[in-house]
């Protein structure tokens, strides 16, 4: 297969170049609102420019998968592939959107309602 010629229209690298041609992440654990936290003790040397950019964003503080995709202006599917690699390499850890103790939905709804009412 002939490698695609790099183009920079719209300032975007072709997504499959960013992900080395992969359409799926190495793990299937990313929800749009999965919380992502950077590990501070991992070197950024050797990371691809996109992964480095992702790490630089995440080193500032916790963000959701959707926010990372939005800030980096990458499709969610591509972002998930990059996140999967960075979790595998120990650069990132994730926190499920709902804690493992599985809060009952009724409790979450009450907290959402309280939070919204407090904003009025």
């Amino acid at each position, binding site marked *: 297969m002939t490698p695609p010629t790099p183009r920079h*229209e*719209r300032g975007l690298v072709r997504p499959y170049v960013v992900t080395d041609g992969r359409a799926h992440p190495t793990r299937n654990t990313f929800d749009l609102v*999965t919380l992502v936290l950077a590990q501070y003790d991992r070197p950024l040397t050797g990371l691809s420019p996109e992964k480095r950019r992702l790490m630089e964003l995440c080193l*500032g*503080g916790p963000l*959701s998968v*959707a926010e990372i995709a939005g800030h980096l202006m990458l499709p969610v599917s591509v972002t998930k592939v990059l996140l999967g690699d960075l979790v595998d390499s120990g650069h990132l850890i994730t926190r499920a959107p709902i*804690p493992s103790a599985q809060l009952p939905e*009724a409790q979450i709804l009450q907290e959402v309602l309280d939070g919204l009412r407090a904003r*009025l």
Partner: protein
Amino acid sequence: MDSALASEPAPDGDLYLRRTVSTAAKLLVVGHFAVGKTTFVGSLSEIRPLRTEETMTQAGASVDDLAGIEGKTTTTVAMDFGRLTLSDSLVLYLFGAPGQQRFTRLWQDMTHGALGALVLADTRRLEQSFDVMGLLEELGLPYAVAVNHFDGAPVYPEEEIREALDLLPETPLVTCDARDRVSSTRALISLVEYLQRRTVVREHV
């Protein structure tokens, strides 16, 4: 009107979540083209609303060439979203997208784990809301309807709108101004109150 426009300018440094946040809840804001989804999300979000796009081929491949799409059979799938930190431990994400994206992975991602949906409607084009309402019903995702008031749009009695949209008696119907933070917050509260009533009923059956 008591307007909350441009109140609470986003302070610097609130790009990131509080480190104490442990739970992320998800609500959808759906409706047809130009019904005000992006405006609604923007009124409520504490961060500058973000947008992600995926370009997909007709075959539905999830990763496709974003460059040089001209002349190809591609669809751009877009989603706008915003964030509200509701407490030290809880954050709420609002995802806005049109319903015609139903077969895409982005739509699946968006609906997965969502507590419910707010359907925005426009009295000038009520029939255009059927598509997305049917889709939510297929998914079993509970929803409330908020008529987004547009200047100059006809105002109908609630009963007529209910009938036109063929709403179940328990489905909440409210009016809102998507540009107004307080009005939009009230519409979301109506939705969450409804979700809560349903949970109580389910737990006592």
